[in-house]
């Protein structure tokens, strides 16, 4: 009996099973850090074969250098290499090499079948490979990753170095317009999915030596390129150090497919409903944030780049605010109102009609009561159902092809809206409230931010329905406390409002003209505080007397 219990307890403890099967013994970089290159070609080929696996798409092409008997092996992944570039840069030049004396650096360098292997290697590296993108590896693991990324790796006998020629042909879409962040006046292009193109797009915006790129490979099995960009001399060095430290988690994660994976690994408060990292697919936005003193994190395979640190107000700013004259001046407060209405309008209506009818002016109360006449549900249930249906509609429409999407909007608008009112299931007033809330939620430019607001709306609704204004406001002040306590990379989330920084406020609740911004956002504690010279304000030309 005692044994039974102890074994039962042991079962509960659930020890991790030891890996014994051959299948689990995949070579992994963190476990096997050292793959030093052996001298002999046969050994190199063998280890390389083990590393890149005996997959059918990996080609080991054995050929001779010119008409000598020096053997070279080219390793590449079929289909991932650009065969034209490969032929031009490697095979043509190496295979058609004519054995002759070369004048190198004043001295004679003769290559024959019996020459020193190091000399052959140097010659190939310096003279024969006709491309600029050449890397030398002393680690077979690195070379293997290059092969799997589409490059061609050359193995020589007698040298403990490996040449990797960059001929990869990345499956790539054309650079397209940014569709999720539409701008009326700003630049239209969005980020490419390919990392190198993204870096090029960023460099195109900031042609200054201060722009530094640091890259790591993230994901144990995906080996995705992840890059951190910042402007040296502007950004706070502590911030870069912190970002570097947090990005180390990215190396050890299983795989990375979207910037969202990185976001979840580097954010400060993983359980908060509010996003603490800004996402953009606009190069101009990323460049502008770099200049403000922020750090941009990009990854291969996704057009979305991450911007840290992020404050609350970034989610109600759109690129157009900065491109059109004084537009931001009026739009920013409007978006704050939209934000508050998205969160609180349905709850306000429910609290008002359920608990505080005495506060409604008489004529309005009559109108609402008449509209609610015959509706079988209490206001809360009505609101919850309508808001729920609206969210479902939106979620359903999100992933539908355009053609079916139209059918959905007919169903949504006519059947659920019109018919529900005619059948007296919901009151017209409630439909107006729900529709207004929907419009307000669309006014918030950042989608992932409005998602969290939409979710919180239901929580506030429940509190408003149980306790009226008291519940609603209690929830409001609770959310305020929560938002105020958040930090993103050490920067308080609601700053510059709380803690207050008057100079930074110029670009938050309002957007004052470009020439009025003397300083970079001070909350980021940038190294170079001054943004631009004073006296840029246009002066009205006076007629000469």
């Amino acid at each position, binding site marked *: 009996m005692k044994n039974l219990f102890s074994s039962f307890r042991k079962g509960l403890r659930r020890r991790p099973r030891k890996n014994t099967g051959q299948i689990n013994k995949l070579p992994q970089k963190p476990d096997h850090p050292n793959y030093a290159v052996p001298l002999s070609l046969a050994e190199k080929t063998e280890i390389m074969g083990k590393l890149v696996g005996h997959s059918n798409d990996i080609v080991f092409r054995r050929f001779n250098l010119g008409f000598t008997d020096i053997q070279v092996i080219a390793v590449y992944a079929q289909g991932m290499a650009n065969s034209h570039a490969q032929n031009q840069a490697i095979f043509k030049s190496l295979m058609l090499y004519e054995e002759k004396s070369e004048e190198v650096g004043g001295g004679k360098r003769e290559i024959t079948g019996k020459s020193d292997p190091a000399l052959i290697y140097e010659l190939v590296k310096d003279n024969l490979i006709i491309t600029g993108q050449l890397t030398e590896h002393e680690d077979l693991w690195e070379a293997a990753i290059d092969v799997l990324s589409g490059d061609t790796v050359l193995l020589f006998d007698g040298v403990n170095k490996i040449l990797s020629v960059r001929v990869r042909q990345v499956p790539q879409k054309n650079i397209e317009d940014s569709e999720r962040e539409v701008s009326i006046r700003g630049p239209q292009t969005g980020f490419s999915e390919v990392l190198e193109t993204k870096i090029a797009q960023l460099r195109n915006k900031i042609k200054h030596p201060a722009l530094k790129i640091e890259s790591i490979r993230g994901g144990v099995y995906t080996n995705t390129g992840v890059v951190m960009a910042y402007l040296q001399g502007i950004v706070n060095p502590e911030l870069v150090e912190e970002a570097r430290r947090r990005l180390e988690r990215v190396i050890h994660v299983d795989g990375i497919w979207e910037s969202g994976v990185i976001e979840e690994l580097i954010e400060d408060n993983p359980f908060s409903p509010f996003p603490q990292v800004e996402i953009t697919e606009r190069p101009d936005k990323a460049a502008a944030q770099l200049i403000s003193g922020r750090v941009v994190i990009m990854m291969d395979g996704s057009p979305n780049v991450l911007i840290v640190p992020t404050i609350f107000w970034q989610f109600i700013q759109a690129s157009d605010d900065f491109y059109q004259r004084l537009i931001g001046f009026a739009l920013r407060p409007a978006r704050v109102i939209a934000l508050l209405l998205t969160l609180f309008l349905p709850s306000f209506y429910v609290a008002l009609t359920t608990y505080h009818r*005495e*506060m409604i002016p008489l004529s309005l109360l009559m109108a609402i009561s008449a509209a609610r006449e015959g509706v079988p549900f209490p206001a809360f249930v009505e609101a919850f159902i309508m808001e729920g249906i609206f969210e479902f509609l939106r979620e359903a429409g999100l992933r539908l092809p355009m053609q079916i999407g139209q059918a959905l909007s007919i169903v949504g608008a006519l059947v659920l809206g019109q018919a529900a009112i005619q059948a007296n299931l919901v009151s017209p007033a409630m439909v107006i409230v729900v529709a207004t809330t929907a419009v307000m939620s669309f006014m918030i430019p950042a989608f992932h931010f409005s998602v969290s607001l939409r979710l919180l709306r239901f929580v506030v609704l429940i509190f408003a329905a149980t*306790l009226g204004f*008291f519940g609603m406001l209690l929830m*409001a002040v609770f959310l*305020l*406390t929560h938002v105020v*306590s958040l930090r993103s990379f050490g920067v308080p989330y*609601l700053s510059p409002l709380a803690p*207050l920084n008057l100079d930074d406020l110029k670009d938050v609740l309002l957007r004052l003209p470009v020439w009025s911004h003397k300083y970079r956002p001070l909350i980021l504690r940038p190294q170079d505080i001054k943004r631009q010279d004073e006296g840029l304000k246009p002066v009205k030309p006076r007629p000469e007397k």
Partner: protein
Amino acid sequence: MLTEKIKISSWQATALLTVNIISTAILYPPGFVPQLAGRDAWISFALSGVFGLSIVYLVVLLCSRYPGLNLLQIGEAVLGRFLGKLVGFGFVLFFISTTAAIILEFSDFMVTAFMPRTPLAVFNILMILFSLYAVYLGLEVICRVSEAAVVPILVFFLFTMVFMIGEVELPSLLPVLDAGFMPVLRGSLFFLSWTAQAFLLGMLYPYLVRPQQAAKIGIYAIAIISFYMIAGAIFLEGALGSGQVARLLYPLLSFARLIKAGGFLERLEAVVILIWIFGQYIKISLFIYFSAFSIRQVFGLADYRTFLWPLAALIAALSLTIFGNSMELENFIKNILSPFVLFFALIIPLCLFGVTILKNSVGKI
């Protein structure tokens, strides 16, 4: 990267003190002070503002002699370990009992004015639970909440008064000092239990980024509060008349209910509730924080977060049992609150200051 070292900017401290005092000051005093001082209530408010300033001056003078120490630590430094702990324990009792009173004040208001059929305990317990979150996050977060909330609170407050400006008849303030000076003085002593709360500056002092601005913080906070209270008194007096104001329990609420602006904007109580709930939330979290903080200080504990739940339960129980009904609460506020607060806000700092001076002069001889 939450920093353990608390830093409070001058603006944050001003906001915290202002919200903290004004959130309960607009509840009873607009009705109680006219009961004592009649139509001269506004003079009482002005006078107690001046008294409050002297308390600020005293506390800042005391604290600047012991940089890096708060009021409780100064007590230990001046009076020695035993007496200092005793004073500290007095502060613990003060904070816990005032917290309970404030919570009851709030829920009593909610029940009387808005939701008469909801039991008091609902408001008490919910308010404590939600405040605990802020307390748990610490003083810095409470400061940030108050600095985010102070501007809307003050603006909305002004907003409600602006709508009444048409109904105010200034001649009803005359004659000034009709009944002599004593009623005015009594009114101002009553309201002093609010302005005296500026002594909390002594608790915030070691965390201030710029301690040399401490006096300024207190002056600004009291100036803002006095401005609102005097304006409120004049508006209430001018619109309703002192006889009626004194009969109302929550004159400002009745005042907001009277508002009719633009033909559709009626009864701005929603705005008033907003001010009250936000303000009270901040005040209650601050007082629970100070209760926990002073317990930690007196008993030499490592972290105040460890005993927050039992403390919250104690406060919740106290808030439900400390007063039998709202009459007892009113009686407490009218007759006992003033000396109770003044003992901790004025007499103890004064004693500490006196002993300090005495010690110094003895040391010199």
